[in-house]
């Protein structure tokens, strides 16, 4: 029995729609969990990029900068897992489990031990194309199930099982998400290019961008900024999609989706309509 048997109406776009609805109805503290991890990393990454591309003494402190980036990357991944755990509790219609020291340490260890390999594995898989969908899903699933009970081996096993499982074919899901990400990047790039001109035209505010002329968009730091903003806009949606995917995948055995639906019927929670709306 698979997820598509359990939910005949559940398709790829329903999954994405549910994810969008969940994010839109999510309270601010839940979104803040994501921002706490991501914003320091992205700001540091932009500084690192600008420093390495233009700094006169960048070569001298490249190792120190890389160490800082490594730590902030792990910081971000841990917070992503906390965000995913909170999101999952919301989907299941349950109160979020309290964070004991033991649980936090387990999450930190899981993310520290497994996520950094993705920095090499995902680009390598992209080069070879074929295993990319599985590898990318695996590392997203590590975040999605990272906050659950279980050690390294259990988390790895669950993430690997769920990587090839869920509503809709994996490659189509990634194609849709990446197309969306590309369109968001295009919008961000154009908005970033147009904003200084608009400021000058409407309010007479002269910025460094208007002084540098239109060629400033060819700056690599400018491009890095547009990619960072796109990541900030799109990644929460991707995380939510994979949390939902894992939730439905694991529900085949645990029945959590049915429990959430029953709980939603008894006392409708803010997330319950998102789940009920997908039912045929």
């Amino acid at each position, binding site marked *: 029995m698979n997820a598509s048997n359990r939910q005949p109406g559940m398709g790829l776009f329903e999954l994405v729609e549910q994810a969008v609805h969940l994010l839109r109805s999510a309270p601010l503290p839940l979104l803040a969990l994501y921002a706490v991890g991501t914003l320091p990393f992205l700001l540091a990454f932009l500084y690192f990029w600008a420093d*390495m591309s233009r700094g006169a003494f960048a070569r001298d402190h490249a190792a120190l900068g890389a160490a800082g980036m*490594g730590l902030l*990357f792990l910081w971000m991944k841990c917070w992503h897992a906390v965000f995913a755990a909170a999101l999952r509790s919301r989907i299941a219609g349950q109160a979020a489990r309290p964070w004991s020291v033991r649980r936090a340490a387990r999450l930190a260890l899981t993310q520290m031990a497994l996520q950094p390999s993705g920095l090499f594995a995902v680009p390598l898989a992209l080069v070879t194309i074929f295993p990319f969908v599985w590898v990318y899903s695996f590392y997203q699933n590590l975040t999605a199930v990272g906050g659950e009970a279980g050690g390294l081996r259990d988390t790895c096993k669950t993430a690997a099982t769920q990587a090839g499982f869920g509503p809709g074919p994996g490659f189509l899901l990634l194609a849709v998400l990446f197309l969306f990400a590309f369109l968001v990047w295009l919008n961000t790039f154009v908005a970033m290019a147009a904003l200084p001109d608009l400021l000058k035209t409407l309010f007479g505010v002269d910025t460094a961008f208007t002084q540098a002329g239109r060629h400033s968009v060819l700056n690599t730091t400018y491009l890095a900024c547009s990619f960072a903003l796109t990541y900030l806009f799109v990644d929460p949606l991707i995380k939510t999609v994979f949390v939902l995917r894992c939730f439905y995948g694991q529900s085949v055995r645990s029945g959590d989706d049915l429990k959430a639906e029953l709980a939603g019927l008894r006392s409708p929670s803010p997330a319950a309509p998102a789940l009920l709306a997908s039912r045929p």
Partner: protein
Amino acid sequence: MLSLAQQHCLNHPAREAAAQCPQCRQFFCRECITEHDDRILCAVCLRRLSLSAGARRHPLRALGRAALGLGGLFTAVLFFYWVGQILLSIPASYHDGTLWQSFWSSAQ
């Protein structure tokens, strides 16, 4: 094989069975079973499970975990160090976009 309704508790033969332990396949009354990790288990199997979980904890396990965590940190640092080296090796004219400006002006 007799159904659950026809079975009796292994520990209390006078009582009707309420559940079958999925681990040892024996039948038990309500008093002799408990829920653990979303499963109904008998007391003996639960004790055995918790003992085996405790026995698996090796003193070197914590050290291994710490090594894994540090290995992950080292991998991340190595990745960003390489990113930094790649950025450093790219010419400044490419970074500030003047390379394309000169290319465009020569084309015009």
